[in-house]
């Protein structure tokens, strides 16, 4: 397959005062034409910085990057012509009218006036913005503005589209809407899509390939399914009548399955282990022989959050990290004792 993006040792350092912060470190990335790739990581992981280097917004400190066949440092103009970009902010000027801004954007990419108008009408129609065409951008709702951002990014039918945190700040309905457009873009035009996200569901549902980035480096790179089966087992979630029973069950589980990760939180016990679904019957029988009967049992396939936790020791979801890490420390100590 043809190569769409190729980076070698791509690095970006920021200097603030005397300190040098490495936002992206030695990134080697190969993305083929037609791929749909998500760069997944927590805020500050370096994924947006990587994207900004690939889109010529930031100059790399060292290393090289070729996008659509062109060098991002020496051939910026050619890169810019070849890509579409939907950033974190709103692409359209607030004082502009919706269709004026779209047509002007198309012409910046070399479309003729008539060609740009036709394309703008087509996009407004498909994004449900036809009625807003002559409205000023500042009068649009948040969801409408985001849809306009998509239209701006697609006006020149780019073969390669970058999206930086596309869903941030969108309600679930608009998020689903946006994802549908990205899927359509690929199906209709065979475009290559690279997006950054810290929404696991988004990466899971959109991308065929996920590059997990943490502290500026790639920590995993695979399909969502492969990442889940390799880096996180099935999760058996049990609840008990009281915390004492839960604690005993957690100890039993840890003793019976040394490879499992066991977390107790109050009356709840989470057992995470590869092939957990197949073990659950035996595990329940083992608990019953000790007189422990769980009130509820749930077996869940691993999520990307589990993958991220397994890879980095931290949760992607804010607010959950502390509880889980603390709980795990407690159990480990108890098991050791």
């Amino acid at each position: 397959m043809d190569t769409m993006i190729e980076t070698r040792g791509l690095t970006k350092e920021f200097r603030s005062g005397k300190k040098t912060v490495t936002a992206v470190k030695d990134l080697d990335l190969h993305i083929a034409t037609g791929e749909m790739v998500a760069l997944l990581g927590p805020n500050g992981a370096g994924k947006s910085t990587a994207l900004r280097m690939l889109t010529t917004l930031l100059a790399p400190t060292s290393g090289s990057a070729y996008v659509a066949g062109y060098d991002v440092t020496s051939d910026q103009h050619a890169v810019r012509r070849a890509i579409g970009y939907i950033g974190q902010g709103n692409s359209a000027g607030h004082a502009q009218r919706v269709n004026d801004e779209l047509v002007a954007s198309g012409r910046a990419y070399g479309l003729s006036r008539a060609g740009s108008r036709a394309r703008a009408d087509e996009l407004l129609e498909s994004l449900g913005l036809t009625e807003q065409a002559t409205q000023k951008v500042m009068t649009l709702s948040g969801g409408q503005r985001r849809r306009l951002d998509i239209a701006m990014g697609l006006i020149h039918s780019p073969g390669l589209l970058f999206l930086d945190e596309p869903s941030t700040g969108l309600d679930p309905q608009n998020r689903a809407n946006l994802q549908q457009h990205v899927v359509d873009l690929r199906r209709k035009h065979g475009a290559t899509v690279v997006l950054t996200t810290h929404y696991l569901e988004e990466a899971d549902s959109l991308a065929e390939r996920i590059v997990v980035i943490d502290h500026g480096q790639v920590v995993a790179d695979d399909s969502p399914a492969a990442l889940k089966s390799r880096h996180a087992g099935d999760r058996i979630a049990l609840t008990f009548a009281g915390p004492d029973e839960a604690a005993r069950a957690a100890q039993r589980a840890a003793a019976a399955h040394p490879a499992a990760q066991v977390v107790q939180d109050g009356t709840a016990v989470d057992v995470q282990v590869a092939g957990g679904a197949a073990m659950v019957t035996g595990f329940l029988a083992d608990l019953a022989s000790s007189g422990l009967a769980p009130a509820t049992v749930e077996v869940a396939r691993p999520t990307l959050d589990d993958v991220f936790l397994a890879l980095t020791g931290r949760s992607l979801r804010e607010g959950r990290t502390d509880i889980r890490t603390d709980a795990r420390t407690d159990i480990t100590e108890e098991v050791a004792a």
Partner: protein
Amino acid sequence: MTALDTPTRTNPAPAAAGPTTSRPTGQLHDIGLVFGRELRPVARDPFSVVFGLIQPLFFLGLFTPLLVASSGQSTADTLQWFVPGVIVMLSLFGTSTTGANLQVEMQTGSHERTLVSPLSRSSLMIGRALKEIVPALVQALVIIGVAIPFGFRPDAAGLVVGLTVLAVFCVGLGALSYALALAVKENQWAFWAVQQTLLFPVMLLAGILLPLEGAPGWLEVASRLNPLTYVVDAERALVAGTWDGDAVAGAAAALLTCVVGLFVGAKTMRASS
């Protein structure tokens, strides 16, 4: 780090989508696009230009009688001296705010989007600065129209050349304003603090509101170091139909400001990425 192999040139044209552009884009084309885009909201809402006329008309209506009274010259002679200065002042007010409009777009993300587009970097500056000149020119024509019944007599050819010289100066000033916005980023008070701190001394030292004849020596020297002084002198000479050294010096000062402004602007743009 080991020496990196040059990656093999990969397929430049995404196969499925085809080439995204249908014709070449040149520098003038880009400037035209940026200029047109910036001007469009003004053209759609011309009331803002009409509203902007009120202030300069006040200057003309309230300041001219003071000048007449203090100089003892006729109204016609005073207008002949004062109107070119007011026109320059209007253009300064407009183009020095180029960066403020940019700051708004830096905050929303629309500036970033234009940086990813193939529009040339200098066209982003020049197009924006040129846009700020248009309302100023419209206002200048209205001012001239109002002043003529009171005895103001501009030389037509001189006026056209004078406004062109002014436009060249303003592109430079607009580029500097653009660079200032990039330098202070989204910090709006910093932009206005610098803009106001620089604009007023430059304006007063150029002798726009009051003549500098008879000023103390140090003021005279400061005035001679100010490029705007030469532009204002040139405007007055050209509007009077006098084609002399003042006009040439003004054109040179305008050109110099333009070159310096674009150079600083381009440098700031490179540094900010």
